[in-house]
């Protein structure tokens, strides 16, 4: 159920600000693609254009094409709500619904899609929590609020919530930046496991993390403040880290930059 994403000529704007410029790339299915680059280079913005979350911000808009297999996400016939059902997202800070129990958090997306039968919900909730490596820790307190979990557990809960609706693609926006090293490791293990099922795109600030979890890495950069972010290069992760084509990539990776 994983799909390939082909982006071509993508620009994103916030009001009058040109945030990212002319990005084209292919994201392979059943693999992990990491986006790295300095702060403000537009990698998170770019990620948000892949499930049309970018336009949630007032005044934001997008130009270009994002093909999910053979469908364009930005075609006029496409409903952004349906897109987000197919392209799931995990955020920088864990954001379980504070008023819902652990169970209800995971079941939220299913209920939206009209799943009402208790047995079916139970089954998928367990499946998703197991999939997020969280089942054993929470199976005795499914009725408790999700906000009561630790940060790392909350983030895995959010992943469970995202995969419960069985998306094609999973977008992760710096999913470990608010977590401690042990929780980070747990998420990285989980990513490793999820990539057999999903197309995963992860934005990260942590280059070791990119090197550890990803198959391919894309490096983004900006020419200066106020300039739009650009894709510098994308390649096999091993190649990017060992022998990048571009000097800017090498400078960034070896720490000679920002």
């Amino acid at each position, binding site marked *: 159920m994983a799909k390939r994403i082909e982006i071509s000529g993508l620009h994103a704007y916030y009001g009058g600000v040109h945030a990212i410029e002319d990005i084209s790339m292919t994201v392979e299915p059943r693999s992990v693609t990491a986006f790295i680059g300095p702060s403000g280079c537009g990698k998170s913005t770019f990620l948000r254009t892949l*499930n049309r*979350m970018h336009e*949630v911000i*007032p*005044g934001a808009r997008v130009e270009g094409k994002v093909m999910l297999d053979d469908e364009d996400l930005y075609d006029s016939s496409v409903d952004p*709500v*349906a*897109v*987000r*059902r*197919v392209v*799931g*997202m995990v*955020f920088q*800070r864990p*954001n*379980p*619904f*504070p*008023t*819902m129990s652990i169970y209800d958090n995971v079941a*939220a*997306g299913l209920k*939206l*899609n009209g799943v009402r039968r208790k047995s079916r919900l139970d089954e998928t909730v367990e499946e998703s929590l197991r999939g997020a490596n969280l089942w054993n820790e929470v199976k005795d307190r499914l009725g408790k609020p999700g*906000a009561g979990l630790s940060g790392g557990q909350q983030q895995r809960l*959010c992943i469970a*919530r*995202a995969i419960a*609706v069985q998306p094609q693609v999973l977008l992760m926006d710096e999913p470990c930046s608010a977590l401690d090293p042990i929780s980070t490791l747990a998420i990285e293990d989980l990513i490793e496991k999820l990539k057999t099922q999903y197309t995963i795109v992860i934005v990260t600030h942590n280059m070791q993390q990119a090197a550890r979890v990803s198959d391919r890495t894309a490096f983004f950069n900006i020419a200066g403040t106020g300039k739009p972010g650009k894709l510098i290069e994308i390649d096999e992760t091993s190649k990017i880290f060992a022998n990048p084509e571009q000097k800017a990539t090498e400078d960034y990776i070896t720490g000679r930059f920002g």
Partner: protein
Amino acid sequence: MTSETGARTAAAARRHAGGVRMGTGRAGDRIFVSAARGSGIAVLLIMAAIAAFLVWKAIPALQDNKANFLTAEEWNPNATPPRFGIAQLAFGTVVSSLLAMLIATPVGVGIALFISFYSPRRLASGLGYVVDLLAAVPSIVYGLWGLAFLSQHMEGISRFLNSVLGWIPLFGGDSPGKNSIFTASVVLAIMILPIISSISREVFLQVPRANVEAALAIGATRWEMIRMAVLPYGRSGMIGGAMLGLGRAMGETIAVAMVLTFVPGINVHLLENGGATFASNIANSFAEASVTGRGALIASGLVLFVITLLVNMAARAVVARRKEFV
């Protein structure tokens, strides 16, 4: 949260250590603190005095009263012997305010949702201001408008409701009119709309962006996002706002006094002319009140004071509960 309070205390402590010990400012500081604290205490005293004097001036009239103050429907404090009770007033006050709250809450919450989530962002504050203008219109003007304009149109609406829903006693009766408790409720609903919508808007503004995005990211429509992330978070705020509106409606005087025609006796047919509330009765009867009459009005005002106090305190408690949550 604890660390935040900690930081605040630390800042306060630093403040104390900083300025106060300096020699030169001491007398000035003392005088200034006394003035500030004195004003605060004056506020406390005013509240205490309100309760005390209302009780004190109500007692003689209550002693002279030959009817049961709580259960009697009649209001004849100027007669000899004086006979008066608050049953009709309490009925009119509670029913008209509750009805007003029922009408205004969905609309008020809807307005808040519109301004927070549906209107173009650039217009939001302007639209909020427009709704606040409803609160700036004085109640005497609502009364005038209610009498000259609204009640004329309410007659037809009341007839219609009576013919369709007449089998429900509240909408029943033979002669639906324009100066009814129902009309008063509609005027009250308009008057409490701004407070309900502004308090709801306040809590909607505080809904964490992260929750909104979480809902959208799992493929929620705008309404589903509101149902999942906004309404549960804002629930206590909306309830509290509705209750504050209720409290305000109960104490509202002039508009009700102008719209309602006084007819003695409790009438459960809300579409028929007649009815009275604590406040409207005070405004209407004061000019002709004798000594006992004034005492009786003060006694009824005391009851109104206590009821609104309880409603408001409960509302504040509900609104405050949200702050502990999350």
